[in-house]
């Protein structure tokens, strides 16, 4: 029966078949691509989040170190002021008093 078919009609049928097959291929790729993209997105986001977490951890550590140093410097400064006061407060008072009672 097929052999007796009008060659133009046969070509038309074949063309329809091509379109159908092509659409099927595109459809399959489309579905596959969407799932693949989602998977890729998840991976990239997870990798980015890991880097961000590491960065935050490092920065937090650095911040704590800087703040600790700052606290030590402050404690040291307060210690120095206290020692200076304990050793010199009488002299300081006398010196300031003398400066005041000396006419400018």
């Amino acid at each position, binding site marked *: 029966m097929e052999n007796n078919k009008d060659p133009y009609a046969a070509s038309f049928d074949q063309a329809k078949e091509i379109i159908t097959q092509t659409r099927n291929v595109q459809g399959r790729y489309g579905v596959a691509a969407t799932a693949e993209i989602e998977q890729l997105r998840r991976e990239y986001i997870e990798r980015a989040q890991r880097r961000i977490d590491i960065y935050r951890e490092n920065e937090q550590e650095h911040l704590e170190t800087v703040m600790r140093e700052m606290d030590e410097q402050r404690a040291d400064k307060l210690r120095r002021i206290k020692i200076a006061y304990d050793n010199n407060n009488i002299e300081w008072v006398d010196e300031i008093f003398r400066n*005041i009672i000396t006419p400018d």
Partner: protein
Amino acid sequence: MVLNDEINNNAEAAVSVDQNNKDAVEEKLLTEAYDMIQQSVFDIKSEMARELSMHKIESKKEVFAEKGHYVDAVMAAVKKQLLEFKKTDAYIEYLKKCVAKANEKLDGLTRLYVSRTDLDIMRAVFPDIDVKQDLRIMIGGIIAENDGLTMDFTFERKLRAEREKFEQKLSEL
């Protein structure tokens, strides 16, 4: 044969288009991830800078307050000595020196301002000068005036100046 080629070409084209799309999507996802990292880094830096800045301010406040206690203690002791000094003859000598100096610098004196407690003694010591009370003078010293020009020899002014110098001195420790 021609039609088979057509099928193959279309299929290849579909695959090629898909590969190009995949590359473009991958590029877009990479950019999204990069932007996400950049934004987070910026946020983290800002947050840390804010935290550090607050810590610095708190730290400075604490040092400032502690220094303030020592400055207050020293200045209170100085004030106590000044009040004792006021009870002595040396104080009157001091006032005389201030008046002489003001007289010289201002080229004469028309008026003296003193504290309430010094009013009588100053009027007695300087009968030729108009001596008035000035409520701003609480501890001692004088403000001398001649033709609108004044010189401030009050303990209050000197205490303020000495306090500033002393605060500076403590900051340099």
